[in-house]
């Protein structure tokens, strides 16, 4: 089973905070892999919030191809974080040449683009690099987005952290999501490793989505190039989030209504019953099926957790103003924020979406039966 940990903090933290919290939950995961998502970065990246950062794993040959490709489309390297790895990796970790975290300067001709156009092109470039990498097996690209770094690898999370020397001054972030298991539902593939990322939206999940195939077919037929990949049944959670907020213009509270709608009887008594009934019908192919606990991060730097209404997966939230964490187990919270008021810890239930806003002052609980913000 997966174990998840996410933290949002006023002060930039090392990813080790999250990995150590994962480690105390190691009885619950098999230590078969790690996925890290860092946002609202500190250190040197603090000064370049708008520069898109490419995260991935490359061979020497792949790096040369990357450089040629990026140069060709006018991207110049602005800053790079070099991760030098020992020649012999720990047992179970594949040998890699380069773990790349590189911030780029936009080409000049992009200056005239709108934000939407720019974000569309960033997705296109990431997907093109992914295709190139899959063809020659020399590049794996996790994200290409401003103020976001992603690291994924197969193996024990703490061993990987020490192998990659993640405990370093120049790698700090205010929002960190970490997951401690390589996806086992489908083939072993780093693209199947949580968290997943699309245009500023990232989620990771503990659970299984048995409605994966029809949802995948539905997303793929939306005509948006970013809805692709799907090495894991959980990747659709990220894309549904993107679809709900970007394509449908709904708020985060709408996300839960899309993936696990209320029962008809509850909809009938809901203040927004007409909207919800329509949404349940028109988004029927996006209804997930399976016990899932989804933790995610939005472009506005909110952090959230959504519980499945069907069956629960473990998920606890706690913290103090300025620092809140979501964890699969309480011991993960204890490891990361020992100085919190534990009486205020709680476990969201089947109707709940929990949100920590960008100001990190409190935890907001959205119950699915509560009124929705009116549509604009």
């Amino acid at each position, binding site marked *: 089973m997966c174990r998840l940990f996410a933290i949002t903090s006023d002060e930039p933290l090392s990813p080790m905070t999250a990995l150590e919290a994962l480690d105390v939950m190691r009885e619950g995961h098999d230590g078969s892999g790690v996925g890290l998502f860092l946002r609202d970065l500190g250190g040197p990246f603090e000064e370049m919030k708008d520069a898109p950062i490419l995260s991935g794993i490359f061979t020497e040959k792949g790096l040369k191809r990357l450089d040629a490709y990026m140069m060709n489309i006018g991207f110049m390297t602005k800053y790079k974080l070099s991760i030098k790895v020992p020649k012999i990796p720990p047992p179970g970790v594949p040998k890699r040449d380069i773990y790349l975290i590189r911030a780029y300067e936009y080409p000049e001709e992009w200056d005239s683009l709108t934000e939407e156009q720019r974000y569309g092109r960033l997705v296109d470039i990431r997907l093109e690099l992914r295709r190139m990498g899959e063809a020659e097996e020399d590049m794996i690209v996790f994200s290409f987005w401003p103020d976001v770094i992603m690291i994924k690898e197969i193996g024990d999370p703490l061993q990987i952290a020490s192998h990659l020397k993640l405990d370093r001054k120049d790698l700090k972030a205010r929002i960190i999501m970490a997951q401690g298991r390589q996806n086992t539902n489908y083939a072993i593939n780093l693209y199947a490793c949580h968290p997943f990322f699309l245009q500023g939206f990232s989620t990771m999940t503990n659970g299984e989505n048995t409605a994966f195939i029809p949802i995948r077919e539905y997303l793929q037929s939306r005509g948006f190039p970013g809805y692709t990949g799907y090495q894991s049944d959980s990747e659709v959670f990220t894309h549904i989030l993107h679809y709900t907020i970007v394509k449908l213009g709904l708020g985060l509270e709408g996300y839960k209504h899309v993936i696990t709608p209320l029962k008809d009887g509850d909809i009938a008594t809901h203040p927004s019953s007409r909207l919800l009934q329509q*949404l349940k019908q028109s988004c029927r192919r996006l209804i997930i099926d399976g016990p899932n606990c989804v933790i995610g991060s939005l472009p506005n730097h909110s952090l959230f957790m959504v519980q499945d209404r069907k069956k629960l997966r473990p998920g606890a939230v706690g913290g103090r103003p300025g620092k809140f964490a979501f964890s699969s187990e309480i011991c993960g919270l204890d490891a990361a924020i020992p100085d919190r008021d534990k009486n205020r810890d709680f476990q969201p239930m089947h109707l709940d979406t929990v949100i920590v806003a960008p100001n990190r002052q409190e935890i907001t609980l959205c119950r699915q039966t509560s009124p929705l913000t009116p549509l604009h």
Partner: protein
Amino acid sequence: MPSNIPINPATLSIKDLPWRILWDQNKCTLCGQCTAVCPVHAIELGIFRKRTVDASWGKDAKPASTMQVVYGIRQKTDPALACVGCATCTLVCPNDAIMPARSDEADKLRFHRDRGGQARNRGGRRNVPGTVLDQIKFIRISMLTDPALDAGRHEFEIRTLLGRILPPEDNLAFISQNGWIPPVREIYPLMIGGMSFGALSPNMWEGLQMGVSYLNEELSMPVRICTGEGGCPPRLLRSRFLKYVILQIASGYFGWDEIIHALPDMKEDPCAIEIKYGQGAKPGDGGLLMWYKVNKLIAAIRGVPHGVNLPSPPTHQTQYSIEESVAKMIQSMCMAWGFRVPVYPKISATSTAMAVLNNLTRNPFAGGLAIDGEDGGTGAAYNVSMNHMGHPIAANIRDAYLNLVKIGKQNELPLMAGGGIGKSGNLAANAAALIMLGASAVQIGKYIMQAAAGCVGSESDRCNICNIGQCPKGITSQDPRLYRRLDPEAVAQRVVDVFLSFDTELKKIIAPLGRSTSLPIGMSDALGINDYHVADRLKIQYVV
């Protein structure tokens, strides 16, 4: 056989018939019930002359013989009167003295069923047992991350949508702009397909309607039933139960005068309107109600003279092409009910179904597409149409679904599959397979006749005489002496039994797959089959 018996080409012996009556003289009481009840007059009182030889052994004794008359059952061999194997004789015999048995080789009767140049007509369905749906297995059992669900105690949402569903973007925009949102019904995914008042006896129809009403009102299962092309009794049209009924219009427009005139008095809108363009059992052929079944009541409801054959034309004669027909009729029907009722066409499965489907995807008023496969049943059709015309449902529904997926409209236009579902008795498994291949709902007809009323018709050519109005169970007869055998209350109870047991079995299929919050439409990863070519064709897994 005397040497001078007249023989003509159609002279058959009992051996040449598909069914032979076995009769036990020792058990028979000569009550005559079997001969009275036989729907095709295949048996009659037989008077046999029997000689007994007495070969005495005494010195002076001489062999002698005595003549005796024996009464019993004689089976007729005239092709028009051949036994159909319905076994109603067995049913009524107080001593179990009589029973039809199938001939040990292919019958010769089949070559002579065209007397007077009349090609064979019959009821029932294609005379080929089994279906590929029976071979499909559900292979994706949740074992690791999410343990399988408890079918008995978990909460399941077994509902489907009928009607045009807008894409989410349009839906939200139309809500805020107060635009027209097409009517959508949330219904149970197993529907009773179109069987007309006329094809079915009044008692059978009443029983089905009562069963459906009970399911809705007492058990909260939104089961819907289609009228078929034969109109709808006036009282039902004006009752609240109309909301459980899908009114069918077909090329004969039978009963629509009555329906249109009842419009101002309707308390409820019907569930939907089904426009029948084709039927799986006799694709490209119209409905057919033989004159024997057109009594006064049927004639009144349909708006026709009684005692005449009612052949519906194969196509809607007022229309020029299927595209035009579909567009115009859908629009007219939508308008008749003020755009409050979903309207969808039903076609027979065909290799040209995708053309119809693509046409519908561009028609914002189309509320779905029902496709009826070659194994569908009918009350009357030519034998050749039933046995040889049509397309299997599995590949057709799969193609249609994948076509919708390709253009991103898989949620917008629900597909309904019919034709041979539960043919071998595996109703829930067949229905679940079709749903996972892409159907939003399935329609049954023959199955409900078999399960709810005891129809004995089979795919090995047993009974299948629905066309002549002599149904021994009273299901498809308009003769009160026959249909009074069928108790509508008992039919209603069986309908409820069928749906409740189906519901349990469907849960027993989807629970181990980990599905409960929505109907697993298009969940093709759950399906497997041990036939490579079928797997390849249906794009499901090949498993051995």
